[in-house]
Every structure is written in structure tokens, then in C-alpha cells.
């Protein structure tokens, strides 16, 4: 690289280190040539540009590889056993790798019901609490100490390992409902602990970007603060709040560990969230994976499949992905319908 001084051949005579001393009220003399950008070679710049472009595209491709791979593997393996029988039966009457009387190999009906109910329970707990908490923080708390404390707690909470949330719910129900209690709602409580910080944070961000102009416009019309918040602020932020809630659900719907501790695992269908153990899809996948192979005695029929547990696990995983996908689509549609339109 050339040093700038070598390039400044056009420096005017008389401006250099030997500048004459100036009077106190005189502005300093500036040599603007010194600040000009140094000339870099066009070819070198183009090479650098190409290099960075390749690097960025490569990084993107690398990031995509695991994503595509996971999707592809789940699709390829999951489709094998995904049929109506699999979706409409639970795991009762499944013996080893033998087909059940209905002709299938057991199914996930009980796990789908469990997943939906437990996640719905978690939503019912965490969305109202989270949204109200964010409303308090943005609309009422200002810069109070309490608000700072809540912020800190929310940050800490978002880092809680899910197994800790499971332990908390388990011990809470042990205290309230007797030791060893396992039910679906207990799972909902554990999941809501994991959802809450996400809901609070996204709602807070959404409330922050509602322009203050709108609050003032509403208040200046003689509308009370409560109605300003519910009908103007929350209404304007609603699309973002919905997206945040969907994000939080997607985060917890695949949780396994806390549900193993709180909701347990059964093979039959239990639609009662508040009593009895409940299976969810991730737990089902885990249980099938831990079986690895099914028993097929020598006198078993031709229909007996030893690798059926792993095949069921993949199919259940695929169903879980599809459920998350459907939730995402619903969230996007709702957000789009509620969003302010220009035309």
C-alpha cells in the first residue's frame, strides 16, 4: 500500500508543517487532500467482492444442509407408516411387532390429542399472563424499580432449562395434589413457564413500536386509558402479538423432558387434561425410539415387523412437524388479516 503522503503530490505550496502562526480568532487552515480516500485498485476490489460473495453464499448453503437433511429424512422415513390407521388408533392391543386387529401397527391418536390439549392449556395460562405483564411494563411501569426487577426475572426465566420447569411443575403438583401426581395440566404448567418469557418479550417489543401518536390521539378524544390500551394499543399490536405467541408455541410443542416428568406416558387415549397420564408426540417418539426393535417370535405371522418402533417414531415426528407447520400458517394468516392495510 502506498502511504497517503506519497500520493498527495498536488499539495498546494505554502500549506505544510511550516504553516504560519495564526491569530486567535482566525479559523484553522485545513489541508483537505489529507482526508481524501486513498485510491485502491479496481481489480483488487472486484476480487475482494467476489470472494466475499462466494463466502456468504457458502455460509448460507452450509446453514441449509442440516435443515434440508432433517426435513428430507423425516419425510422419507415418516411417510412409510403414515396412514389413516396410524392417525386413528392408539397403542393399545399392540403386541411386539405383530399387526393389530385393525390391520395396522398401533398409532398416535392419543399422542396427538395429548399434544394439542397440553399445548392449549399452556397457551391459556401463559398468553394472558404474558400479555398483561407486557402491558404493565410498557404502559404503566415506566422506569420503576419493579419494572427493572421484572425485566431481569423474565431474562432469567428465558434461560431456564426445560427440565427445571418440569421439576418445578412436578413438585408444585406434588405439594398441592399429593406426591407423584401426573396429569396433562401439570405438563401445561411446565410448558407455560417456558412460553411465558417469549410471550412477554415479543409483546413488549410490539407494544413499544405502537406510535405514541396513537395513544395521544385516543386520549385526546376523551377515551379512557383502559380503552385506549385495549382498543387502540393492543389492537394495533395484535398481529405481532399473535406471531409472538405462535413462536412461543412452536418452541414448547416439541418439549420432551418436562412432559415425561409431569404428564407421564400411557398407551391408551386420555382426553381429560386434569386427570390421568397423557402422552404427547415428542414423548411418544422418545418411547418408540427407546424400544428400538419389536419382538417377532419364530411362530409369528408374516406381518410381524421388527423395525416397527423406529418407523412409528419417524412417522410421529413427521406429524409433529406438520402440526407446527399448520400452526405457523394459521398464525401468518391471522396476522395478515389483522394487519393494518394501506389500501
Amino acid at each position, binding site marked *: 500500500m502506498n502511504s497517503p503522503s506519497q500520493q498527495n503530490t498536488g499539495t498546494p505550496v505554502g500549506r505544510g508543517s511550516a504553516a504560519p502562526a495564526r491569530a486567535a480568532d482566525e479559523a484553522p487552515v485545513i489541508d483537505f487532500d489529507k482526508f481524501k480516500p486513498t485510491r485502491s485498485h479496481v481489480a483488487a476490489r472486484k476480487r475482494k467482492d467476489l470472494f466475499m460473495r462466494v463466502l456468504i453464499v457458502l455460509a448460507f448453503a452450509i446453514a441449509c444442509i442440516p435443515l434440508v437433511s432433517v426435513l428430507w429424512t423425516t419425510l422419507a422415513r415418516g411417510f412409510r407408516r403414515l396412514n389413516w390407521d396410524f392417525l386413528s388408533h392408539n397403542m393399545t392391543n399392540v403386541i411386539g411387532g405383530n399387526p393389530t386387529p385393525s390391520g395396522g401397527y398401533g398409532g398416535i391418536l392419543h399422542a396427538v390429542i395429548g399434544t394439542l390439549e397440553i399445548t392449549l392449556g399452556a397457551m391459556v395460562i401463559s398468553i394472558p399472563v404474558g400479555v398483561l405483564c407486557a402491558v404493565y411494563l410498557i404502559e404503566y411501569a415506566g422506569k420503576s424499580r419493579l419494572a427493572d426487577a421484572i425485566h431481569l426475572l423474565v431474562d432469567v426465566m428465558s434461560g431456564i432449562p426445560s427440565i427445571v420447569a418440569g421439576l418445578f411443575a412436578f413438585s408444585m403438583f406434588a405439594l398441592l395434589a399429593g406426591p407423584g401426581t401426573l396429569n396433562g395440566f401439570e405438563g401445561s404448567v411446565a410448558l407455560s413457564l417456558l412460553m411465558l418469557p417469549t410471550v412477554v418479550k415479543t409483546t413488549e417489543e410490539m407494544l413499544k413500536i405502537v406510535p405514541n401518536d396513537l395513544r395521544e390521539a*385516543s386520549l385526546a378524544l376523551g*377515551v379512557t386509558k383502559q380503552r385506549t390500551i385495549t382498543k387502540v394499543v393492543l389492537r*394495533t399490536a395484535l398481529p405481532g402479538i399473535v406471531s409472538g405467541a405462535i413462536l412461543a408455541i412452536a418452541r414448547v410443542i416439541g418439549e420432551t423432558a418436562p412432559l415425561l416428568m409431569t404428564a407421564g406416558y400411557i398407551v391408551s387415549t386420555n382426553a381429560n387434561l386434569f386427570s390421568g397420564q397423557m402422552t404427547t408426540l415428542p414423548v411418544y417418539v422418545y418411547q418408540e425410539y427407546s424400544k428400538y426393535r419389536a419382538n417377532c417370535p419364530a411362530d409369528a405371522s408374516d406381518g410381524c415387523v421388527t423395525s416397527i418402533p423406529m418407523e412409528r417414531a419417524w412417522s410421529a415426528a413427521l406429524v409433529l412437524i406438520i402440526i407446527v407447520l399448520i400452526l405457523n400458517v394459521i398464525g401468518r394468516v391471522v396476522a395478515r388479516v389483522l394487519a393494518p392495510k394501506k389500501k
Partner: protein
Amino acid sequence: MGQRIDIKHLNIYYGSFLAVEDVNLEIQANKVTAFIGPSGCGKSTVLRTLDRMHELTPGAHCTGEVLLEGQNLYGKDVDPVAVRRDVGMVFQRPNPFPTMSIRQNVLAGVTLNNRRIAKSDADDLVEWALRGANLWNEVKDRLDVPGIGLSGGQQQRLCIARAVAVHPQVLLMDEPCSALDPISTLAVEDLINELKQDYTIVIVTHNMQQAARIADYTAFFNLQAVGKPGHLEYFADTTTMFNNPQNVEAERYVSGHFG
């Protein structure tokens, strides 16, 4: 009909900082009163105390009296929400509710307060307010399109329609034309001239020509230095203010020597 406002010994604070000092001013009913003055002198702050919007800023408060037709707005049992229904406000930037249509925006003052309104009443109110804001002919065929789809000047007139739809006695305007182009400004100024039949209007403006064009009275606010409180320097009818002001600072300001 509009109502008069008497401001007596009004001191306005942000926390412990005295922003505006000892304002005494009589605002005549059904006239346009303009607040002018250099930046930071507190004219918007004074305006916001007239409908108790000032106290929404954390720590902001004021002492003294603001009498609307003799009744102190800062009296003990006065509900600020009720004050804001009697004293409407239009802001610097047009701020229609983005989730609402033109029609819903005009009705916002009624519907946001959970008041049910019959469809025929609503139709009449929307037409009345939009006609009052000189906007009816431009939007009557598309009342259900979002309010933020309109042009800036139309949005501002929509905001005026929204403000008059709650039928206030006084209309406060905080630099209502500073975000608008000259044509829209003209439309809003014409509208202000018509609105003073029914409302008392107080307008803050940075544009002295605008004050000269539309105001009946003009209040000149000033401050001695940055960090010092602002004060009401001179109050006169607009002709006197701009042609023959009896105040040195005001004379220098309106002739463009500072500010």
C-alpha cells in the same frame, strides 16, 4: 358554540424543571388564537395544558388555573377524560388509527368509549363531521377504506373530523400544517376559518404568515435563554401584532430578526 378560556398564573413543570412561567391569557370564544414564538419557548406545552394532555408525560404537572367558561380544568373533582371531550386536539403529524377505516376513524371518539351507536345515527355523524372537515366530497364513496391510505392533507382533515365528531367546545391545534404541502395547508387553513363559527380555536404555529392569515389574536411566547423557563411575552390582536407591536422582542421576532 365555542367557549372562552382564561389562563391565570399558569406555571408548567417537567419534573422539577419549570418549563413555562406565569402565563396569564384570555382566549376569546369563537375566535382563532395563535401561539407563536421561537423553538423551546413552551407554546406547545401551554397548549397541552389546556386539555390536560400535558400531565401524560411522566413527571409533568402544572400550577395555576385554566378556566373553561369559568370552570377550573384543574379543579379537584375534574376528570381529565371529561376535559378532553370538551377540548379536542389535532396534532402535528396526522395520526389516524391504522387499524380503522375512514368511517371508523370518525366514529372513534364514540365507539372507543363503548358507546353503541345506531347505524343511521353513525351515518349522519360521519357525514356531518366529514362535511365539517371539508373532506366529505373526497371520501364519500370510499368510507370503508383504511384512513392511512389517504394523502397527508386528507389524513389531517380526517383527524379534524375525528376531533369534531365528539363535539368539543374548543379545538386545539399543535402545528397542524407543518407536515403538509402548500395545497393541503390551504385546505386546512380554509377549514379553520369555517370552524371558528362553532369552536374556539387555539393554534400553535411556526409559520408567522399562517398566524397572520388565520388568527384573530396572537400570543407571542419567548424565553430568555436555553434552560430558562419560557413566558408569554406579548399578546395582542393579530393586526397589531404584525403591523404595530408594542413590544420590542415581539417586533424583532415578527420582523424576522430572530427565532
